[in-house]
């Protein structure tokens, strides 16, 4: 995958706009089974990345991703910060290690595994991993961006039926069932936004 600086800057702007638009919804989801701040947390993170988008976009993709991850970690706090941060830092490091990152899918797989380690969590725990796993599987399968986005969306929805085993929602026990996980929701939103951009600007 090749991304020009302009693409990266545009993607950052797009993700930030997407989170901004859905911030209240993400917080509402988090209010139901968490502490109601996921929208604010994600906004703060994306605003910080957006503020540094020019210098980030000037970096090679692996370094840019790692930098985005670091900015997220240092600005979000809460659970989302280390998780999204680890995802991007590890993805960047993985791509760098491969020498300009030809095998995106492999790097993503390792990054998702790092997120799971950081969160001590796995599939079915009702977290953003329940979106990351299927997205990564579709990428391995080289599915079309539109299909990946739809998968992400339905994966997020399927967290409704789960009982949370990690994160604040897990403290609710069975009461967490019936609500969509906010982290899964933000993850699907971002996935769909990125896929939409890629479909439009770099048809694979």
């Amino acid at each position, binding site marked *: 995958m090749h991304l020009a600086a302009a693409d990266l800057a545009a993607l950052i702007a797009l993700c930030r706009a997407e989170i901004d638009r859905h911030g*209240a919804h993400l*917080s509402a989801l988090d*209010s*139901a*089974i*968490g*502490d*109601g*701040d996921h*929208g*604010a*947390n994600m906004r*703060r993170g994306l605003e910080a990345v957006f503020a540094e988008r020019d210098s980030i976009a000037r970096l090679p993709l692996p370094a840019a991703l790692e930098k985005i991850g670091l900015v997220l*970690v*240092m*600005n*979000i*706090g*809460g*659970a*989302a*910060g*280390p*998780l999204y*941060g680890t995802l991007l830092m590890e993805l960047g490091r993985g791509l760098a290690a491969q020498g300009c990152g030809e095998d995106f899918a492999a790097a993503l797989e390792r990054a998702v595994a790092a997120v799971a380690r*950081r*969160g001590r969590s796995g599939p079915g725990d009702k977290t953003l991993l329940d979106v990351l796993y299927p997205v990564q599987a579709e990428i391995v399968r080289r599915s079309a961006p539109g299909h990946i986005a739809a998968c992400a969306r339905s994966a997020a929805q399927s967290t409704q039926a789960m009982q949370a*085993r*990690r*994160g*604040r929602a*897990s*403290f*609710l*026990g069975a*009461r967490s069932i019936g609500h969509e996980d906010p982290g899964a929701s933000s993850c699907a939103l971002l996935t769909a936004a990125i896929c939409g951009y890629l479909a439009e600007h770099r048809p694979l």
Partner: protein
Amino acid sequence: MKKIMNAPERFVAESLEGLVLAHEGLLAFGGGRKFVRRRVLAPGKVAVISGGGAGHEPLHSGFVGRGMLDAACTGHVFTSPTPDQIVAAMDEVDTGAGCLLIVKNYDGDVMNFEMAAEMAAPRHAVETVIVEDDAATGPAVRSRGRRGVAGTVVVEKLIGAAAEQGADLAALKALGEDLNGRIRSMGVALRGVAVPDNARETFVLGPEEMEFGVGIHGEPGLARTRFADADAIIRQLGEAILAEFPPGLLAAEGLRPLLVVNGFGGTPPIELYLAHGLARRFFEARAIMPARALTGTFVTSLDMAGLSLTLALLTPDQFALWNAPVATPALGW
């Protein structure tokens, strides 16, 4: 829900500034205002560092001072601080004996402190104590790991006192782990809270409802139940606490129980003292004789109405640590 606030994004910073100004003799800001520290460090002792989301005041910054914390890192409301804050605190207050991190058991807090510990590993000896005192999130609800709630004050006080007396990193870590089996808390909310960015409360209770088994983030608790009189509330809290101690501990000889009645921010002293009296009677009727009491507002959930009880079954040595001198904004004797 109205707040004395200028703007959500300045809420935490302005509050911390006021705290430090009100207690200039004890406190100072760390570099870049990333944390609050003891104005004068005690060289040679282990640095005791804690932190967490804002909204729990006086926890944690109000417990910085002699005999308790050396630094506290505060995040946004109900949001863990970020690793850079924690690393900055370690760099500034570790005088050579290493850092003991006290972390309430929330995934966000655990992960951010863990990343900080990894980043600081080349320069600092670091150990972490995870506080898990919440009786509402015991094994019946969650496969592993209770939340850390008001019992955190007890853990910070005892570890802080031990550090002040020269205990090393390994001893402090062992003390923290031992305490996790000895402290149980249970809370009830009579009114929910709205975080500054949100207009709405996380849960809305009717005039005849209460939320039982709540944590300290305005999140829903174990069950929505019928509002009851104080005796019934205290009995429910007390029974939940007693049910969650490790088997055998309640029957152990020579324990010195400590009873904490903690207001969640919107509950006034007249109600807290009443609750203390009833809790005392509840436990004494079960042959648990609290040897000391702490009643007040220590671990809040913004202005949530409600309270929690905490029972700590301490050894005589641990009890002596509780009685050791302490000079912080929110706890002093």
